[in-house]
């Protein structure tokens, strides 16, 4: 059982078999995380560099924990404290790090396509931890793992993803991945925050929340970047909350067992009301737990072999 892909650059074009293998493997790593001793010796001797050119708490910690629980040696690199701030190019940085004998690179960068570029300048296995406005594949995988855990399947489920779709690599990865898995995805947000060419994602896009929520099994809210308010993409936080936020009133009109998700960090009281974020329908913390299991699965499946 081997993945067809050699690197995880995104979910666009990744087969259903590969996604299923990652999710099945992650379910078993979830079991490892429930034990007293949460470490397995599988990746002993492998060195994994976490190359983070963009700030991140959750994703970086999650990857580092996944690496440690597989007994790999993680090496953390933050661009702000590195030679990148002295003007070293990405290619030089990665080739210098590779010269120190590393096996895998987990990369986050503000430019789309950086993970792909890295595959051209190193032999190491590359895992995308978020690249610009492009993809964040491990987030989408942990979202699908969580949905499967809660609802028992993926195929045929209706998912509404609501928020700043335009700037969201999470929405993009989920749209591609979920479509491959036979799910019914609809993207929703203010017209100014929708992609200009939604047809390239292959899923319906709307600015009508009620239409998006109709019959949804899963509702995923995305963080509204408050700093964007000044760029006049929506008139005010309050207006956004009223039109697109999910509160108890909206929740009461949804299916009883609807799954409420958010990739974090949550703006409580904006895209998601506090009492909904803490309700029994919310799986936000399960998503975080599953993130470690999914990343262990990805590292395990990509790191093996010759």
């Amino acid at each position: 059982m081997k993945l067809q892909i050699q690197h995880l650059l995104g979910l666009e074009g990744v087969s259903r078999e590969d996604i299923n293998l990652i999710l099945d493997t992650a379910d078993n790593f979830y079991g490892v995380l429930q034990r007293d001793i949460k470490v397995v010796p599988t990746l002993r001797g492998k060195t994994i560099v976490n190359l983070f050119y963009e700030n991140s708490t959750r994703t970086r910690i999650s990857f580092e924990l996944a690496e440690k629980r597989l007994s790999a040696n993680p090496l953390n690199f933050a661009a702000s404290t590195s030679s990148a701030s002295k003007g070293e190019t990405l290619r030089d940085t990665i080739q210098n790090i590779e010269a120190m004998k590393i096996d895998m690179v987990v990369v986050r960068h503000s430019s789309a396509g950086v993970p792909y570029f890295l595959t051209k300048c190193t032999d190491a296995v590359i895992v995308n931890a978020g690249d610009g406005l492009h993809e964040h594949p491990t987030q989408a995988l942990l979202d699908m793992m969580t949905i499967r855990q809660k609802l028992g399947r993926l195929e045929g489920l209706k998912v509404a993803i609501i928020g700043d779709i335009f700037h969201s690599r999470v929405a993009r990865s989920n749209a591609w991945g979920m479509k491959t898995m036979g799910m019914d995805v609809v993207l929703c947000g203010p017209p100014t925050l929708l992609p200009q060419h939604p047809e390239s994602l292959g899923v319906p896009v709307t600015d009508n929340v009620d239409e998006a929520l109709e019959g949804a099994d899963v509702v995923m809210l995305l963080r509204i970047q408050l700093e964007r308010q000044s760029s006049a993409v929506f008139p005010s936080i309050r207006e956004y909350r009223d039109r697109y936020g999910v509160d108890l009133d909206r929740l009461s009109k949804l299916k009883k067992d609807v799954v409420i998700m958010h990739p974090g960090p949550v703006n409580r009281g904006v895209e998601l009301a506090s009492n909904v974020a803490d309700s029994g329908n919310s799986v936000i913390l399960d998503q975080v737990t599953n993130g470690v299991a999914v990343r262990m699965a990805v590292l395990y499946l990509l790191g093996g072999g010759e």
Partner: protein
Amino acid sequence: MKKVELIMDSHSLDLALTRMAHQIVEHNNDLANMCIVGMQTRGVFLARRIAQKINQLENVCLDCGILDVTLYRDDYRNAFKQPKVKATDIPFDINKKDVILVDDVLFTGRSVRAALDALMDVGRPRTIQLAALIDRGHRELPIRADYAGKKITTLAKQEVALKVTEIDSEDSLWLMEVEEGD
């Protein structure tokens, strides 16, 4: 792969498991402290059958768990075919217990080595005893079975294939050989 010889049919397989169950009971005075763990995949079904036999024999109710050793293997780095990670399910405490570890075929001893490490990560048993349906020789590590259904002589290139009704529709154990051009 071609079949060379039938080592056990359904009847002799059942007899072997019955004998192993008796031996396990004979060697363990305190059955209340005992539990059984089967190694994925077919060891799981053998473990259940042995547990059932002991339960009937001694009127007890043994805990029976499942162990997957994939993450503990020593050939991860160069394994050409990556084995699929399967479930480990030991929903009971194994600390200070006598654990009967059940495997189908004992060969190089490497999966048992992995299983010992995996069990130690779950807890610290008082003893671990190994029950293998077939001991086919060619050990590469200092490991032996406490209870063996049958010892046979094989060539290293041959394979021993167990089928169990639970997933293969029949009970049988065949010695197999790689054919030219396989």
